[in-house]
């Protein structure tokens, strides 16, 4: 019995990690009907940003191991992650919806950085490469070469997969492919309650996940921006006709979702301190399953979906074989798609004709 209860605790803490990632997935889907595959890589980016903030000399000198320093790292990573999210939206997803100037210059600039590094391996060479790339991009756009704008959800989905691969592989180049170890920035205490070991870090993660879920519900349902988000979700063109700046609302949605991914990266790294550029792939897929299980687009559903996946995984390992750990989430995905495709809390969607 004691072992079972402990496994329950383990499952809930593993599940809260999935729930954190699933929240962002489901919110972006709810508004844009887009499965943002780059979400799990923004999660990885958040973890690395937290790692660099916590290891910076400024942080080491002024902050110690305290709850405050945990909050600083969390907020810092959320801000940086949301900036990355807005950048991805602006230069990868928006050009897929409508013609947006500067897209070619941006991607040529990145290409130029790569070439500059290959040739020189010095900051100067990289900067020259970026500059050359931007110039080439601007000239091409002046000539009238620009990405064709023809919105289709399949196209944006494929762009999302491309961005995901781009972030994973450039992460291996920039951060290094070898795993790093996330420092202990908040104090840990193990509480013993009736034979159960409760780790204060895991309780923190669960608590923050619940707070973020409530906050997200409030933003989406009770603020003006939230109302605009729901309007965009309901009908993009009608929302634009009603005077909503749809591009800004979509960018805000991505920024919010990416901030959640960044928070997830930090909180999960506190529990499981090994971080590497490919760390987002599997948790991201499982969080996606969690979002589908809870009813994709439904914020409370994502939370429950995450907890169910986490519990199922821990029980499969604790009372079965550890090899089933990664299979169980996908078995659940197949079952839910066969039995109730809209998920536990999802509403039936009627396709508008």
């Amino acid at each position, binding site marked *: 019995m004691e072992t079972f209860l*402990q496994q329950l605790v383990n*499952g809930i803490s593993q599940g809260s990690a999935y729930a954190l990632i699933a929240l962002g997935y489901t919110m972006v889907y709810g508004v844009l009907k887009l499965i943002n595959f780059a979400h799990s890589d923004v999660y990885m980016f958040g973890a690395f940003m937290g790692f660099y903030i916590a290891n910076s000399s400024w942080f080491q000198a002024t902050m110690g191991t305290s709850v405050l320093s945990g909050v600083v790292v969390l907020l810092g990573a959320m801000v940086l992650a949301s900036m990355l999210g807005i950048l991805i939206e602006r230069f990868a997803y928006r050009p897929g919806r409508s013609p947006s100037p500067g897209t070619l210059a941006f991607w040529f600039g990145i290409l130029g950085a790569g070439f500059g590094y290959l040739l020189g391996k010095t900051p100067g060479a990289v900067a020259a490469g970026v500059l050359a790339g931007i110039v080439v991009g601007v000239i091409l756009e002046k000539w009238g070469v620009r990405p064709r704008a023809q919105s289709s959800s399949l196209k944006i989905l494929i762009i999302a997969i491309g961005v995901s691969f781009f972030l994973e592989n450039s992460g291996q180049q920039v951060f290094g492919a070898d795993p790093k170890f996330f420092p202990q920035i908040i104090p840990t205490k*193990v509480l013993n309650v009736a034979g159960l070991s409760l780790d204060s870090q895991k309780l923190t993660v669960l608590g923050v996940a619940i707070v973020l879920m409530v906050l997200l519900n409030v933003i989406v349902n009770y603020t003006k921006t939230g109302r605009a988000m729901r309007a965009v979700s309901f009908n993009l063109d009608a929302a634009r006709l009603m005077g909503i700046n749809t591009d800004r609302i979509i960018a805000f949605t991505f920024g919010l979702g990416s901030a959640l991914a960044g928070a997830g990266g930090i909180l999960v790294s506190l529990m499981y301190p090994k971080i590497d550029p490919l760390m987002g792939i599997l948790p991201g897929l499982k969080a996606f399953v969690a979002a589908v299980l809870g009813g994709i687009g439904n914020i409370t559903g994502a939370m429950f979906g995450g907890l169910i996946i986490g519990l199922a995984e821990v029980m499969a390992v604790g009372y079965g074989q*550890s090899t089933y750990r990664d299979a169980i989430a996908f078995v659940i995905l197949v079952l839910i798609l066969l039995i109730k495709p809209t998920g536990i809390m999802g509403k039936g969607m009627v396709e508008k004709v």
Partner: protein
Amino acid sequence: MKRRSWIQASFLLCTTVLTSCSRDQGQGDEILIGEYGSLTGTTATFGISTMNGIEMALDEVNQSGGLLGKTVRVIVEDDQGRPEEAQTVVTKLITRDRVVALLGEVASSRTLAAAPVAQQMGIPMVSPSSTNPAVTEVGDFIFRVCFIDPFQGLVMAKFAAQSLQLTDVAVLRDIKNDYSVGLADVFVENFRTLGGTIVADEGYSEGDTDFSAQLTSIRARRPQAIFVPGYYTEVGLIARQAKSLGIEVPLLGGDGWDSPSLVEIGGAALEGSYFSNHYSVDDPSPAIQKFVGDYRDRYGATPDALAGLGYDAAQILFDAIRRAGSADPTAIRDALAQTKDFAGVTGVTTLDENRNAVKPAVVLQVNDGKLVYVETINP
């Protein structure tokens, strides 16, 4: 870069020397030995430590008059840590430099790539530190001076049952990794033979980050220690999670733990845990202390196990050439196969009929964030 160009220069030099030389190595006034290793790449420290150890052994033998009245020269090639490059440089060493014997590599994958070439050409190869059992199965010209993976399972079983007097031990193995499974199987078998009980046998896969489910199952069986024969990354995470589940018993492991990162990841959770390794710089034996002192004087660093094994590999090869009384590759091979009770810095080495070293292992304990020598366990 400097070292690379030096190697290339020496390589050029020896090719010019050799083209004027006949195939018969006995005629010159030098005995040529080839060494290949990862001097660059992600495992550069492996190759450099080994090369430093070999250089020390080389200088010692040449200062005492060389072998068979000739000077010994070691030609070093960099394989950049790539198996296919290892094969290329070994082919070059044998066919162009005409070395009579080879030293290398550290990583089993690279030794396995190069060994078939040496076997086919009939040139004896001594690997200082490739522990995978398959390495010496390539053929009768391939030797190694370190113990093989399963031996560590036996060492830790003996240590747990006899030194620590434990009766109930749990096993947590990496089921995706041959090394880990091999160690765990041998440990379980020998620990049972020595009268102990394996109370739980759980698995995980390399790359996992959550081990709480397995550790909770293990905790319910109340073991006195947990044998975790994995690599340092997972071991560090396992130690932390065990601590947060209130598991206070020590962890036991093998040389996969040997990394400066181990303590960085595991932190205080690893205090009091034990693992087996090839040698310890704290070993009080005078031969080891002399080696450690000389090495520090020369390279300004503490020799790791790979430097010690490189040193021993070279010494064992020199000893075989001396006993063979000839620089003929086949004669050297026969003498190597007869190596018995050779006293080196990594212990007394005897090569068995499978050309593997039978030698003691040391047990280290994590104490105040440092690795402390506990005892030596003989086969």
